[in-house]
């Protein structure tokens, strides 16, 4: 059964019918937002059943759209939190990918700006590595990008999409070894992205992120995960009810090959490891439970089939 990420948008009235349907079909609701009279569900559903969901939600005026970024956690790496980079373009991009279902976190570097003085510390490196992909938002000058990029990517193991002011060909030429994705002509700017051409640029960034993530998905598919992170999310929610009291917008953040559990590591890690998923298989058998560098959260990394010989 091939699960695909989609977004359901509809009225609050009888939306539980759609939610139940998704679960009955074997899908998972990753995020649920209720905004006044509207409900937005970001979910994974079986590819063959999308039409059925559309059919059933039609009388409720529900809308099902493809959302390739659902179930991913993206690090938007901004060079600083100064007025120079915020709210444009960093927040604009972070917000735009969020609209398409991704959970984006803004990672701002303590010493990101400048040319010679730019640097990346170990905490920043580890936090970026906890995400599925890192989107680097750099400046307008190719000289600076060429000079500082080797420093800023040191130790980064996740795919990088680089956004910078120069043209895409120039970016490709100056970055060595190459990164996974490039978007040119998006450097530092100090105006809101609201014109059609600026929105096209945001779409281009999303397209590039999607392309790189698809590649990563294909890699994962070659050695499938022992359990789907979305399923793990449901199990944790059921077995550790304390997660329901967490006020964070996404207490369980689904990633492509794991999930972030926003509970203190010291208190909950052992309990988490011993959760039974199915037929006596515990979470600790098929996933690694690490302390996250982000606050005192827990990071669960699901192991691939080749390491556990189990798929549930």
């Amino acid at each position, binding site marked *: 059964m091939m699960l695909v990420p989609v977004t359901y948008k509809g009225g609050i009235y009888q939306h539980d019918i759609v939610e139940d349907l998704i679960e009955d079909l074997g899908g998972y609701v990753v995020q649920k937002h209720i905004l006044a009279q509207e409900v937005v569900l970001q979910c994974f559903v079986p590819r063959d059943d999308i039409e059925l969901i559309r059919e059933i939600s039609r009388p409720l005026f529900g809308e099902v759209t493809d959302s390739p970024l659902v179930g991913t956690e993206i690090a938007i790496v901004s060079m600083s939190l100064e007025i120079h980079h915020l709210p444009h373009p960093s927040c604009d991009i972070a917000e735009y990918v969020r609209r398409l279902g991704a959970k984006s976190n803004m990672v701002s570097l303590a010493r990101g700006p400048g*040319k*010679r003085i730019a640097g990346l510390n170990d905490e920043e490196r580890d936090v970026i590595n906890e995400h599925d992909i890192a989107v680097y938002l750099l400046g*307008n*000058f190719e*000289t*600076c990008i060429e000079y500082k990029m080797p420093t800023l990517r040191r130790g980064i193991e996740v795919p990088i999409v680089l956004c910078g002011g120069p*043209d895409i060909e120039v970016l490709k030429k100056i970055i060595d070894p190459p990164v996974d994705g490039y978007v040119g002509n998006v*450097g530092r700017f*100090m105006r809101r992205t609201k014109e059609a051409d600026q929105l096209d640029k945001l779409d281009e960034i999303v397209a590039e992120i999607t392309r790189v993530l698809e590649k990563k998905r294909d890699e994962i598919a070659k050695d499938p995960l022992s359990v789907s992170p979305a399923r793990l999310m449901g199990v944790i929610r059921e077995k550790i009810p304390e997660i329901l009291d967490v006020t964070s917008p996404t207490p369980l953040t689904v990633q492509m090959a794991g999930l972030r559990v926003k509970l203190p590591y010291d208190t909950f890690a052992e309990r988490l490891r011993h959760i039974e998923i199915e037929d006596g298989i515990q979470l600790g058998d098929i996933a690694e439970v690490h302390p996250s560098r982000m606050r005192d959260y827990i990071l669960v990394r699901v192991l691939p089939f080749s390491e556990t010989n189990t798929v549930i």
Partner: protein
Amino acid sequence: MLAVEYFEVECPEPLGAEYYKQIANDVLLDHNLLKVVDKLHIFIDPRVPVFVAVGILRKITTVVRVGDFANVNPQEGKMTLVISDETYLAPMLKIFWERFGKDKVEQPDRFTVILYDVPVQAKEIEEIVVADPSESVHKDLIYALRCIAPEGFRLRSEVFTGSKFLFVASENTLAEDIGTLIKEKFALMGEVPP
């Protein structure tokens, strides 16, 4: 940038210059400084790296008076001011309190101020000077130029005189002969440094 007589951004990277022209335009526009700047020349060399902004200011003669942002309606025993722009509301109230006393000034809501039994005509009230934008223009300009300059350039040298200004920034110690560069950039505008 219609109001600025001369506006150039010089950079060895043409695309970078184009972006910085846009940034400078946006920042000056946001900070309402376009009508203040007469000439502006920005030079950026990311290879050094250095950022130089030199320019000429226009004389600001206008002051903000109560009549510019409020409608004064004299009534029997009182005067009602209908405020259309709140920006200068606080300094205006302060002036009224000092001049007439707090008991004679009432503000029932955000956009209304009522003066009771004040011994002046409506015309005089309208003429009261509330703010002088030229007082803060240098401060605003320094802030704007800090926003325009690349963020890592934290070593700065600024000179702001009556009508001329220069702003140099870099992440390295500024070169000793930076004065020559500044002179060159002023010469491009047909001016001499302050």
